[in-house]
């Protein structure tokens, strides 16, 4: 017993090192699987406040281009209102405007932080779009800020469909270029042309059907493959993302409950 204690004391530094590293690795693993900690992320009020400050300052430096983007967005919104009022889909969908206060675009796991949180009714799993197209999915919600997983994060999967024939595929990102993503799971019996339009499929409650995602840049079919490798040019320009809208689908809870009930 005494010898054991002696050994433990002798190697205590190493044991502390191992214990701390194990704790850090558990944090990484759990954060990759369920990043729900709103305190230990940029959804934290203080951290996000600092990011807001930075984006306020840089916002003044780019007012002109921002105004142009806002004007374009307004026009687009008016078009949307007219089209929405004309169709009777029966879906109760609300768009909550938000400002991007922090964003990375050149890492493998990019995130963006928006200035809306649980106080504004934001919930994990809601879709985020802007005037150009789909942006990402809400991943962590704090009281006043939320962290969004954009399309340009290697963890993101988004169900999409071709407008021309309604074939479904899964949009993923390869970590290389924030302008392009890859569309997987498209079987080879379909003909893919450059310039085909890709939109959200509406199969999950995250996004309603038909939000633009991108257009096909090129498609490769290696011999022996049963699926295409399709490169999609994303509609959304993540490098200059400033304003977004969170998609709040009133039926999301019910749909998720139904899906969970199936398992």
């Amino acid at each position, binding site marked *: 017993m005494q010898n054991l204690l002696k050994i433990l004391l002798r190697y*205590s*530094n190493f044991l*502390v*090192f191992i214990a*701390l*590293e194990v*704790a*850090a*690795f*558990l*944090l*990484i*693993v*759990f*954060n*990759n699987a369920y*990043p729900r*900690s709103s*305190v*230990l*992320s*940029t959804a*934290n009020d203080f*951290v996000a406040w*600092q990011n807001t400050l*930075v984006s306020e300052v*840089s916002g003044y430096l780019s007012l002109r281009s921002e105004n142009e983007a806002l004007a374009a967005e307004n026009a687009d919104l008016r078009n949307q209102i007219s089209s929405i009022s004309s169709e009777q889909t029966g879906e109760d969908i609300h768009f909550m405007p938000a400002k991007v206060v922090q964003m*990375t*675009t*050149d*890492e*493998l*796991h990019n*995130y963006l932080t928006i200035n809306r949180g649980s106080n504004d009714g934001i919930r994990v799993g809601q879709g985020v779009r802007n005037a150009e197209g789909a942006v990402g999915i809400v991943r962590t919600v704090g009281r006043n800020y939320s*962290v969004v997983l954009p399309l340009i994060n*290697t963890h993101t999967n988004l169900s999409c469909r071709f407008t021309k024939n309604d074939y479904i595929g899964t949009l993923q990102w390869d*970590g*290389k270029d924030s302008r392009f993503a890859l569309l997987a799971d498209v079987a080879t019996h379909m003909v893919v042309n450059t310039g085909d339009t890709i939109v959200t499929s509406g199969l999950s409650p995250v996004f309603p059907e038909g939000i633009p995602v991108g257009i096909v840049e090129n498609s490769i079919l290696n011999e022996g493959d049963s699926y295409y490798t399709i490169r999609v040019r994303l509609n959304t320009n993540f490098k200059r993302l400033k304003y977004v809208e969170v998609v709040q689908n009133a039926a999301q809870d019910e749909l998720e409950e139904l899906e969970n009930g199936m398992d």
Partner: protein
Amino acid sequence: MEWTKQIGRYVVVMLLQVLLFDQLQLWGACHPYIYILCLLMMPITLPHNVDMLIGALVGLVMDVFCNSLGVHTAACILVMFIRPYLIGALVNDKDRLNEQISLRSIGMEAILRYVVIMVIIHHLMVFALAAWSWSHIGFVLLETLVSSLVTILIIIGYNILKYR
């Protein structure tokens, strides 16, 4: 008094890191983590265990700003674990280690080797853990190379300006 200075420097360096260096997204692969300057230059007077706990804390704070819970924590703990052994191997004159580790206390050759080894270990660990897969190994190595170079230049430059 020494520790108030150390904490003061940590606050200033952390502000620079978050407000300036995290905002630079210049060459796509350049993310210098200059905050480890504080860990590297801390005097080696505290018990080794306490050093590692400080490392864990500093890493955790950085993780909160990067949405990468655990990544910087793991890298900083490793850096703080290796530190006394590396310094022991690089510096013969043990009397000088009561001061903080700087150009003045250990000399140009030792500080250069020390900073280069530590920064590369730290950056490689951060980028590899953040990628969390072998499929991006090329990008991880490029990121490590470019970012380490900038961090090393800044830490050595700071030493030359302040502790020659």
